[in-house]
Every structure is written in C-alpha cells, then in structure tokens.
C-alpha cells in the first residue's frame, strides 16, 4: 500500500532553505509567493492489509527515523485503494 509521509520543520524553527527559496522566487518576480517552508516528502510502499495498519507502520518509521522530533513534525496520508486520492496530480 502506498503511504505518503510529509515531514516539516516545526513552525518555531527557522528554515534556511525556505528563506533562500523565497528570496530567489522574489528575485525572479514571483512576489505573490509570500513565504516558503521546505520539508521532506516520502512515498512508502508498505506491506499492509488495511489502511490503518499501513498508517501505523508508517508512523513507527517516522517516529524512529524519518523525522527528528526536536525540530520536525510529520503528517501521514494513506493512499487507500478503496478511497479517492486527494490533490490534483500533475
């Protein structure tokens, strides 16, 4: 089952990459982008019978390895084959 894990820096943590990207966007005229925060995005292929189980496995992976709780938080999204996926694919 496909599970997506989004890892972001906590709001209180300064994001040097995000700031650089914001500045670069402004310098080439993309001023409408007021701010950017950069995180990590993982696509996991998980051996699981149910969406709940997949989510549990992914959480465990995120807790131990994928995210550093001192600076990061994460969000999990299971591509339940039964349900309709979110977001416009491109």
């Amino acid at each position: 089952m496909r599970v997506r894990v989004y890892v972001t820096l906590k709001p209180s943590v300064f994001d040097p990459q995000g700031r650089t990207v914001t500045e670069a966007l402004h310098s080439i005229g993309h001023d409408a982008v007021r701010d950017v925060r950069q995180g990590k995005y993982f696509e996991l292929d998980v051996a699981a019978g149910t969406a709940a189980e997949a989510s549990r496995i992914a959480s465990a992976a995120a807790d131990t390895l994928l995210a550093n709780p001192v600076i990061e938080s994460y969000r999990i999204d299971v591509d339940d084959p039964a349900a309709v996926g979110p977001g416009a694919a491109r």
Partner: protein
Amino acid sequence: MKFAVVVFPGSNCDHDAYHAVKHVLGQDAEFVWHKDASLRGADVVLLPGGFSYGDYLRTGAIARFSPIMREVTRFAAGGGPVIGICNGFQVLLECGLLPGAMLRNRSVQFQCEFVHVRVEQVDTPFTAACVPGQVLRIPIAHGEGNYYAEPDVLTALEANRQVIFRYTTASGDVTEAANPNGSLNNIAGICNTQRNVVGLMPHPERACELAVGSRDGLVVLESVVKSVSSAGGALAGSPQ
C-alpha cells in the same frame, strides 16, 4: 592511553583523527568498526567527521542505529569521555546523548574555512588544558552546522554552563559576523549535563600541526589525555 575512533560507513575524518592522536599526540588509537560490539578497552571514544550514510535523510540520523552506539551510550553513562566532531556531533545529537539538532547553514552552502571559537568552560575532559576564554583558530567543514535547540533547552544549556565552544572574532567577541552558520547563541560545541560527552562542529583534529595551518586544536586532545591520566583511569566508563 587509548582512543577508539569509531568508523561508520561514510566517515571520512577517521584517518585524520587517528593521525592526530597517534602521530601528533603520540597516544594509542584504534579504529572501531560500527558493527563491532566492543570499544576494546578504550579510554576515550571519538566519533569522527564525515558523511555517515552519505548524510542521507539527515546528518547522523542513520548512524545512530549502528550496533557500536549501544556501547558508546553505555561508555558515556559510565562517565567515559566521548567527543563527537562535526558528523560525530550530529550523531550524538540524533541519538540523544546531547540535546538539540542541526539545521542547514544559513548560507545553504557547505562551508570549509578557518573560524575562531572561544573556549567557554574548562571543566570538561576535552577543555581541561585550556585557559578560560582561550580563542582557538580551527577549521569548519560542514553544510549543516546551524545549531538549534528549543528555547527552554537553550536556557538550560546556558544555565548549566553546557556551552563549551562559541564562534567569536579573533579577539574573542561574540558577534553576528563571527557566526559562520547561524547557530543559536553562536554555539559551536556543547556538553551533556555530566560534562563527559562533548560535541563540536569545528575540527580540532585538522588543526594539530602548523604545516596544515594551525595547531590550536591540539589542546582539545591534550585536555583529555590530561583529564584521563589525572583521574587515574576513573573516567573510563566501560566495564573492561
């Protein structure tokens, strides 16, 4: 006196540390492979710089699961002196032996250059031979050395005098310009509450001979030799 230089896959300052300890300092040094289960009776543990596991995911994130880290943790808990340099510091942060985390440098670039750091505390095994406030000229070489800790953690670090090295000007002033990477409070190195585990981003092992630009880093290694010998081995944390 023996130093264990831990080698993770991707460590690349292991030979530099070994050279500094063995050939400059004249002490015994031994490489310890990350899959080893024993520190082989070492008196000091040194986690070297480099790119363990390619720095993939996050610096130090994967190395902390190496089998040897269990031994390192036990050694540290027993009061044994442990130093993490650059990537070694990042491993110590990831495995929780030291508080905080590293962010990308403010410049978003890897930076290799000489900097100045001020020795803030001399009551750790790695600064015992320093003069308080002594300024060392030693190099940094990292892309993620921007030290971060949550406000309460930072307050506690300062209150407990756990900040051991700070980036300063050559004359020892803490300024924004002297901070190469954006670290909070210009922090270059810290210790744990027991003060036996020290991590720092600059590379003292690269500054042990004038031929390569500076010998200011040697005092860090000399300190631990002094501490261990004066403690008569009492610092050694591993049950041999």
